[in-house]
């Protein structure tokens, strides 16, 4: 029995196992069904809800639990033609909207009463160049309460308490 040859074969086997193990660990994990993810300032990632009407029902329940009057402003995100439930702005931070299919990323910085697009993967960057929309200036802006990233299909709207109540009532 040739020890060297046997050793070589076993070594080859171990190498293959090591490679498989490495590849399996480094393989990017499949994101769940949703292709659009919003990461809130707390670092929590939620997949934006799919069109499934059932899922939206759960979401309505969430709204009922929100204490009315605590947040002063809400961030309403629309991606393509899907409108997502408004995020109450109770602390400052960044919201990240990533759309896997388009390879598009938009980052929104919010404070308790304002929002602006801090970065975007789009070519024209018009959305980033917009000044922040605040509860104070939104009436006077030409675009109103909106910041639009047209290439990525992302629309941001700052809602005040009345508008939010209107929106919630319309659900």
């Amino acid at each position: 029995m040739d020890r060297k040859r046997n050793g070589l074969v076993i070594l080859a086997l171990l190498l293959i196992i090591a490679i498989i193990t490495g590849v399996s660990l480094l393989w990017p994990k499949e994101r769940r069904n949703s292709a659009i993810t919003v990461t809130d300032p707390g670092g929590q990632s939620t997949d934006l809800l799919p069109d499934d009407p059932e899922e939206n029902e759960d979401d309505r329940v969430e709204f009922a639990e929100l204490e009315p009057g605590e947040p002063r402003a809400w961030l309403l995100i629309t991606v393509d033609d899907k409108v997502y439930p408004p995020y109450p702005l109770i602390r400052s931070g960044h919201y990240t909207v990533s759309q896997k299919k388009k390879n598009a990323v938009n980052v929104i910085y919010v404070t308790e009463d304002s929002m602006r697009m801090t970065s975007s993967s789009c070519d024209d960057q018009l959305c980033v160049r917009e000044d922040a929309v605040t509860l104070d200036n939104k009436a006077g802006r030409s675009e109103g309460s909106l910041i639009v990233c047209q290439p990525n299909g992302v629309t941001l709207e700052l809602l005040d308490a009345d508008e939010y109540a209107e929106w919630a009532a319309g659900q």
Partner: protein
Amino acid sequence: MSKTKGNLGYRVALGGLLVAMMLILGYVETLLQGLIPMPVPGIKLGISNGVLLFALYLMDIRSTVILMVLKVLLSGLLFGNPMTMLFAFCGGALSLIGMIPLSRVKGLNIVTVSMVGAVLHNVGQIIAAMFVMTEVSPAILLRYLAILMVAALITGAATGILAREVIKRLRHTVKRKMGR
């Protein structure tokens, strides 16, 4: 090709015996699986590989391939479903593809060859699983494969040692009967 070498009648009888052995041993394996706790389901002892090694070393290549196909068919019909047949075939085929040339290489210990066969068997099964079970992500299958392969090294060595001992004691009888 192989019909001219040695005693056909003896080869057929031996082949039948070996297939029956593989079926029985496979069944016993499934009984034992529930007893020993495993981190991961599906780790098998794979004694069938040992029997195939016996055929590989003491008979000719064509018979070994036929034995593998028969085993997959029969154990699939008896104990499993067409799905397990597909996995078993892919695993067995890849394993033989590795074992056949290696068994002819001079100086390679049968235990080593058995380990290669066991590992390749798992690789073949997982590759088949990747195509069939599309809902499972490849990442999960690959991690499963890594664990299976480590277990395969151990079971392959055990099966190899078993095969070696059986071959050592029976080779003269078989060779005589085969007419070589």
